[in-house]
């Protein structure tokens, strides 16, 4: 063994060494700390919403405060937690390691994107807390441009700024994957996590500018009275919805594609099994990324959009469900003839498969125009997208955090606690959100501060589930922090996984590999040869 360079954590220890670092691993940590903070804030808002909804009367908050609270929850969770969550933490940390590179293609740009994110994030946070916005995260016009008396321009500009961080990250990842793969790492030897980062980067680079443009138009109308969306000025309010969903539907795939990548790594490692149908999995990632741009109109079946446009968006939405179904079946088939162990990472991954499947199947109800008419804008939709984004994306994110925790920190976490938290999360999540499907099918509209008495029982169940979910989310925060100091030192490859990131030490040295990693001919999932 030649001389061993210090790990990336042992390099400069001063605060300054972290704040001007160009090491993708340290930038990933910076992101992780920031998004954890945003997740906690967004979660507190969610708890306030669930507390308010325990009783039919609006007795905890005023209507205005309630509206500001769910807007806060939506804006923070979507733009400051979900969108950056997996790509900017796990993606930043793992992408270069998985392809055998020293760093990303543009390390300075990577750091710049964190500062842009923090700048926009802190600014938006101050606006949301100090003043607040009551438009919902969707900013529908003409309410947002002409009727809301809250700080729409400031919050919109914060979100506008944060969008650039997404774009820069996307460009960086695309360039990294194209140019920095180690010798032997061909396209079809890339781990599915890298493929998912590639797909998500494409969507970020192509869709985010549309959001920026839309928000800029809102600001222009509010500030200068230019008639774009407000009919009183000759504008068209539906134009806003088209532009907004042209970004925000692909944004759903920004949130879910990375989780699909993570889960593919977790299931293969815990089942010691090559992924079933690797190429189909790659094609479905790309298929979802591309088709995701052509289904935005399914948010608008009752908006007044043409009946025939709705038919087209309906069939396209059914078609995009096919690659998602293929992925679920392939994950299950991967278990066949494996050596399966139900460790925490696997519980998270299988939990993801179940919740994502339920979210996807209920998506079919909403893709069917005739059913969407009564279900849209009710709690059915709220439950549906929380199954995808919280049941799906957050489960996968936490599963990934556990799986790569030894690599990132050099410490093992307490396995028993991790299993308890994962199981509790699955249970609490279902208790929170399954009743919301029933509420929606019974006709309870979303974004209601007060509601008719007949909806109370299911709302109480949902709030009870939310309190379990809150404890389940707090647990990993506690034991993972505890493990930083007291966890057993991690071996280089505790799971006997096959990805290149496990060939280096835990935690890796600053430039990732001491010797160039060896790409197996059967890469990336050469489990059978073990």
């Amino acid at each position, binding site marked *: 063994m030649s001389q061993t360079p210090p790990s990336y954590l042992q390099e400069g220890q001063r605060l300054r060494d972290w704040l001007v670092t160009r090491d993708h691993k340290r930038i990933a940590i910076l992101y992780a700390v920031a998004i954890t903070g945003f997740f906690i804030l967004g979660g507190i808002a969610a708890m306030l919403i669930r507390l308010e909804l325990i009783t039919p009367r609006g007795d905890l908050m005023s209507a205005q405060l309630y509206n500001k609270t769910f807007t806060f929850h939506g804006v923070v969770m979507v733009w400051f937690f979900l969108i950056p969550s997996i790509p900017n933490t796990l993606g930043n940390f793992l992408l270069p390691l998985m392809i055998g590179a020293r760093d990303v293609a543009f390390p300075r740009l990577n750091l710049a994107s964190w500062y842009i994110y923090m700048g926009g994030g802190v600014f938006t946070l101050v606006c949301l807390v100090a003043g607040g916005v009551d438009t919902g995260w969707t900013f529908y016009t003409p309410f947002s441009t*002409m009727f809301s008396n809250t700080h729409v321009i400031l919050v919109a500009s914060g979100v506008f700024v944060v969008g650039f961080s997404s774009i820069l990250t996307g460009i960086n990842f695309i360039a990294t994957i194209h140019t920095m793969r180690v010798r032997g790492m061909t396209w079809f030897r890339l781990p599915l996590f890298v493929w998912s980062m590639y797909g998500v980067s494409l969507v970020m680079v192509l869709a985010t500018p549309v959001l920026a443009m839309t928000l800029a138009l809102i600001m222009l109308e509010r500030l200068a009275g230019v008639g774009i969306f407000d009919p009183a000025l000759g504008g068209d309010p539906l134009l806003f919805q088209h532009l907004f969903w042209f970004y925000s539907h692909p944004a759903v795939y920004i949130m879910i594609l990375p989780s699909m990548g993570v889960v593919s790594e977790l299931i293969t490692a815990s089942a010691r099994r090559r992924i079933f149908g690797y190429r189909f999995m790659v094609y479905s990632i790309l298929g979802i990324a591309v088709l995701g741009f052509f289904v935005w109109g399914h948010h608008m079946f009752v908006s007044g959009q043409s009946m025939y446009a709705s038919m087209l968006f309906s069939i396209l939405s059914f*078609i995009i469900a096919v690659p998602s179904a293929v992925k679920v079946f392939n994950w299950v088939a991967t278990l066949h003839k494996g050596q399966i162990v139900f460790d925490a990472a696997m519980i998270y991954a299988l939990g993801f498969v179940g919740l994502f499947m339920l979210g996807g199947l209920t998506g079919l109800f909403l893709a069917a125009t*005739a059913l969407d008419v009564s279900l849209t804008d009710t709690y059915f939709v709220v439950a549906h997208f929380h199954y995808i984004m919280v049941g799906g994306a957050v489960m996968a994110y936490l599963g990934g955090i556990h799986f790569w925790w030894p690599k990132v920190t050099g410490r093992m976490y307490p396995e028993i606690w991790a299993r308890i938290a994962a199981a509790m999360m699955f249970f609490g999540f279902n208790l929170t959100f399954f009743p919301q499907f029933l509420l929606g*099918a019974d006709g309870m509209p979303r974004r209601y501060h007060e509601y008719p008495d007949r909806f109370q029982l299911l709302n109480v169940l949902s709030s009870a589930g939310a309190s379990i979910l809150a404890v389940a989310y707090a647990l990993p925060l506690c034991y993972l922090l505890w493990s930083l100091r007291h966890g057993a030192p991690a071996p280089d490859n505790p799971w006997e996984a096959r990805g290149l990131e496990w060939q280096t030490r835990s935690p890796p040295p600053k430039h990732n590999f001491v010797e160039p990693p060896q790409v197996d001919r059967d890469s990336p999932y050469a489990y059978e040869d073990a």
Partner: protein
Amino acid sequence: MTLPQASSEAARIDTLFYFMLALSTVVCVGVLIAIVWLGIKYRRGSPADRGGREQRDLGLEAAWTLIPLLLFIAIFVWSVKLWAELRTPPAQAQTIYVVARQWMWKVQHVNGQREINTLHVPLGRPIQLVMTSQDVIHSFYVPAFRVKQDVLPDRYTSLWFSPTRAGEYELFCAEYCGTEHSHMHGRVVVQTPAAYADWLQSHARQGMAAQGAALYRAMGCSGCHEDGASVRAPDLRGIAGRSVALADGSIQVADDGYLRDAILLPRKHIVAGYQPIMPSYQGRLDPEDVLALIAYLKQSGDAAADPEPRNP
């Protein structure tokens, strides 16, 4: 679902809903059983046979790509047929006008009655609502009828239903519309035809068309649009429903939305052969006034000398 099925389409929509529910349950249970079975059989260290470990099976993958695809297309066809019916009101539907504003529903019946946050309709008769908003976007939602339609400030949107059970049903605003969004609710009262006729009688007022006729004179429309006027303006008798040739060469059907734009945004469509001299009435007329004017224009068409019997 505990919702009553109170409209002609509700039962058929629910059939599709329950079909999807059954399908989803089968898929979920199937996948769950597969995961549990595989998880137990192939737990680490179990004695199960793991020979022949090929991880590709084109036939299997093609099957679980194509079967969902075909199934989805079938569901799409089923749903889209229902959807087309939901979007196409029967020809004999009775029209009622709805104006939404923060935070109330204002209803206007053809014979002049007005209601707030309540809508009276007769049992067994198709009702078409023509709706617009005075401010932001709202959404008219009656869960018991399985209907919902956004209500926009710049156009008329419409929905129809045919009530099949007498009673009172919840009306919600489903599109977030500001502070009091959750208080923007009301009720739909479905009455037997006899009770409905009584209700109409007891609340009798001047009809919408008569209100429109009064406005037509008071706002000065007649000054230009009537025979013998000094200004040359299109003749409006029988305009409603006709095709109108426009100065830009296109042809527009003079539906409610066209007439509304002609009153509020006269520069939007210039009739071929006329000068764009009409002033906008934006801000001078309430949405209810515009609807009354349109009702008057429709009636004047019916009243106009018309030797041919009309076919609906």
